[in-house]
Every structure is written in C-alpha cells, then in structure tokens.
C-alpha cells in the first residue's frame, strides 16, 4: 500500500520541474564578500555524488547540499560550520523514510508508557513546557557523516563533512517525562517513535531505543527549542529527543511516543542498522542490552575536528601571518587540545581554543602561522579530555560510520 506522502511527493515532481535550473552557487560567507562560488565537493567523494549533488533550499532553510530529495538528505556546506553554533536555517537535514507529515503543534500529543512503566502519561506541548526546562549546547552529528570519504566507498547516503551541527537545545528532561508514567526498575531501554513513517506499510518504521542509564541523564531531553526558537520542521518540530554525545540516529524527530521496555527492542533500525563491529573503535559508552558477539549499536561520537576557515586549494598571501581555524568535538568528554601541522605531520603546534560552551558543544580553534610561497598542507588533530585522538588511517566498517580521519587542506601561497 502506498501512503499519503508518496502521492504528495509525486505532485512535487511536476511542481518542482518549473524551478529546475536554479543557481548552483552559494554566496561566500567568509568576510561578508558578496561574490558567488560554485559548489565544490571533495574529490574523494563518489563521482556520481559529485555529479548529482546540488545546492537546494528546502522551505525555511538556506541552500544546503542536496544529496537526496526523498527522503530529504541535505548537508551543511562547510562554510556554515565556522562558528560554535549552527543556525537553524543552516542545520543539516536527514530522514530515513519519506512519509513526513507537517505536525500541528496544537494537536501534537506525546504518549509515554510501555511494559517498563507503571502507567501511562500523555503530554501536549504546553504540558511538556510546564516541566522544568533544561538547556544544553550539543553537537548533533549523523553516524554516517563523511561516509562518502570512505575508501573503498561503502553504500549509503554519501555524506561529505556537513551532516552535523551544534545548537542550544532546550526542553524537558526525558527523566522527568518518564517519571510521569513511573519508570520500573526492570526497564532496560527507552524506545522512541516519531510521526514520520515509511512510504510502504511493509517498510520498518524508524524506531530507536537507548539504554535507561543514558535516558535518565540530566541533559537527555525532549527538546522543543533550538537556538531560542521552535525546532524547524526539518529538524523535528515540535519536539525531538536530544541525546548529547551520541550520534544523531537516537535524536528522534517529531517524537510522538516514548516507551520504557523490559526486554531489548527488536526493531530493524536497532538490530540490523546503525551497528559497528565490536572492539574496533575507542568508545567508552556501551549499549550492552543490544550487543552481540560481532557487533554493537553505535553510541557516542568519536573525537573529531574540521578545518572550516579555508577550502582545499584556497589562495593565501605568502610571507604574512595568517590564521586558520575550525571546530572540534567529541562524545562528551570535552576537547583538551587541537594541534595543527603545516609540514605534513612531522611537527605539531597547539591551536588556541575558543570559548568552552560545555562538554557536548563544538569547540572552535584558531592557529596562526606564516605560509611560505607554494603549497602548504595544513592538518588538524583533536584530542579529548580522556586522551583519545583522531585517527590517521581510516577505521573501515561495513556501514561507513565514525569517520574521524584527521582533516587536511592545502593552501596555495603566492
């Protein structure tokens, strides 16, 4: 059976045809210059992606890099990631399924229950907002961010660097929401579902779970505000789950049900998708009720950084002091240091870190040096508070998760 939104999507094809051929250029944001730049994507991405990706603005969003129209998968150009907070209209968009309703805040209901709860509870948006409000600045990053840079390539959404962003999320503690239904001590996982669904009834709905210990942390939220405003539709209006430190797959958008369960949740999106080989990555947070001998659900983000001040191949002035900069983040231990090499990794020097907005936030950094005439490869490497550093060599895994290879750009000084 074909669902409602598939038909709308088809209507959109003809309506959208009139808009084809829109400009594929993006205003240059750095230094407020007005000139336009063509979309330039890393040569390491699949050729088919480089040929088909375009800049496209979803309603209410600035132009993002369109990887797929339906379900919509759009990443932020690196230029949007130069600050510690990513604007709502510049934030990436990721959906698994294409039946995406526009949720009406007036009729939205959140139901809470499950066999791991003593009873049932229900919230409308006003009731949710009456619970104590908590705000946390946290990175939301897709598990597969940078998948397109895997070599050999692996199938999936072929993300470049921009399936991530950082925002101030405000909402009720998930713990307080669960308390309204009463959490039993036998509960092992908390299961989330959102209002979006599949185009076909037989496709597994996107439903996710997290362990109770993570669900009851002080900053795990049912969030209804992003950077001081309502959540954009594309980022989960009117409320989404926020799981600071963990990858975006658990941050259920348009959340409509929260269930405590006493047995591990068996859905496709837990048992078959979003899993990493056991023991391959230096992650601390484990999801033991979902582990098998071979693989385990992805959990916290691995330590990472990105050079955002300059594109690869950017021209600079030889012999004068200049600044490169970017962002760094991890799974919630906090960034201890970002180091920069301008000699291909032989020597490293400490960058200056920007303001600390909390252990789940992006940490900006800058580094000053004097480029000599010719090509200079600049590489950044972040290390977190528990001593984890970025990898030099890609850690291969079948689904293309956790890419945290050190990022480099080559500057051309003349």
């Amino acid at each position, binding site marked *: 059976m074909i669902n409602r939104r598939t038909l709308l999507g088809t209507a*959109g094809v003809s309506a959208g045809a009139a808009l084809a051929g829109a400009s594929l250029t993006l205003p240059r944001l750095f230094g407020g210059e007005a000139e336009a730049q063509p979309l330039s994507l890393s040569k390491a991405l699949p050729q088919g*992606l480089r040929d088909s990706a375009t800049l496209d603005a979803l309603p209410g969003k600035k132009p993002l890099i369109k990887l797929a129209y339906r379900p919509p998968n759009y990443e932020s150009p690196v230029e949007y990631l130069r600050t510690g907070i990513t604007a709502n209209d510049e934030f990436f968009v990721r959906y698994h399924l294409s039946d995406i309703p526009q949720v009406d805040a007036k009729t939205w209901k959140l139901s809470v229950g499950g066999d791991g709860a003593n009873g049932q509870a229900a919230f409308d948006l006003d009731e949710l907002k009456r619970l104590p409000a908590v705000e946390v600045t946290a990175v939301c990053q897709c598990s597969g961010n940078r998948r397109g840079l895997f070599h050999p390539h692996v199938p999936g959404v072929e993300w470049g660097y921009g399936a991530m962003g950082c925002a101030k999320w405000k909402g009720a503690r998930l713990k307080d929401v669960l308390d309204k239904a009463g959490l039993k001590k036998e509960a092992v996982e908390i299961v989330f579902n959102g209002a979006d669904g599949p185009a076909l009834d037989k496709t597994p709905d996107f439903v996710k779970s997290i362990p109770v210990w993570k669900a009851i942390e002080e900053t795990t939220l049912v969030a209804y505000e992003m950077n001081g405003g309502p959540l954009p539709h594309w980022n989960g209006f009117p409320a989404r789950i926020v799981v600071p430190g963990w990858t975006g797959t658990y941050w259920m958008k348009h959340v409509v049900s929260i269930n405590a369960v006493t047995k591990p949740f068996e859905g496709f999106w837990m048992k078959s998708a979003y899993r990493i080989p056991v023991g391959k990555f230096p992650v601390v947070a484990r999801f033991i009720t979902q582990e098998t001998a071979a693989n385990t659900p992805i959990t916290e983000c691995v330590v990472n950084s990105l050079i955002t001040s300059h594109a690869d191949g950017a021209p600079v002035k030889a012999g004068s002091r200049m600044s490169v900069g970017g962002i760094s983040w991890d799974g919630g231990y906090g960034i201890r240091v970002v180091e920069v090499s301008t000699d291909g990794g032989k020597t490293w020097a400490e960058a200056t870190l920007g303001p600390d907005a909390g252990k789940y936030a992006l940490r900006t950094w800058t580094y000053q040096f004097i480029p000599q005439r010719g090509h200079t490869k600049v590489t950044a490497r972040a290390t977190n508070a528990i001593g984890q550093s970025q990898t030099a060599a890609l850690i291969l895994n079948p689904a293309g998760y956790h890419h945290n290879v050190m990022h480099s750009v080559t500057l051309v000084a003349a």
Partner: protein
Amino acid sequence: MRALAIALLTALMAAPVAAEEKPVTLKKGPGLEQVEANCGACHSLDYIQMNSPFMASATWDAEIAKMINAFGAPISEADARAIADYLKANYGSDHVTENR
C-alpha cells in the same frame, strides 16, 4: 493554461513544507522504466547516482535484495532482474575505474 497555473500554485500552497523534488534524470537504457516505477516509489533516484559508480555487481544485487527483504519493496522477479541489469550496466563499477 491559467487554470493549470492556479491549480499548480494551489498544490504548492497546500503543502508548504514538502520538499520541492526536482526530476532526477538517469541514463537511458533497458530497465530504466522498471527502476523509475519500483525504486522511485519509495525514494528519489539520486540515491542511485550518489552510490555510483563504485558498486560492483554483487553489491548492487545485495542492495536490491535489501530493498525487497528488509524494506518490503514489492518488486516482481522479472522487474528485479531488469533493475539489476540496468544498475550494473549504467551505475556499476565492474567496467569502470573511478577517479581518486
């Protein structure tokens, strides 16, 4: 013509948050019709473009099997064969060396 334009505008206004999906043009070839009818029912066809040309024939077979078995796509055996042949011939890696 004017009535059509109004109908189009009304359709757009009725769904203000729907993505404006632009047509994705795949390479012409035998099997394209089956690809558009089956694959395009659940997702836009740029998924095929971006996953190319690095997928070997066995990887395309695995993807089609996943769409049928894991995602419940009601694709007939004949269509599945036509889709596989089309994807391997037009978006596969068996005859391509990708630039790095």
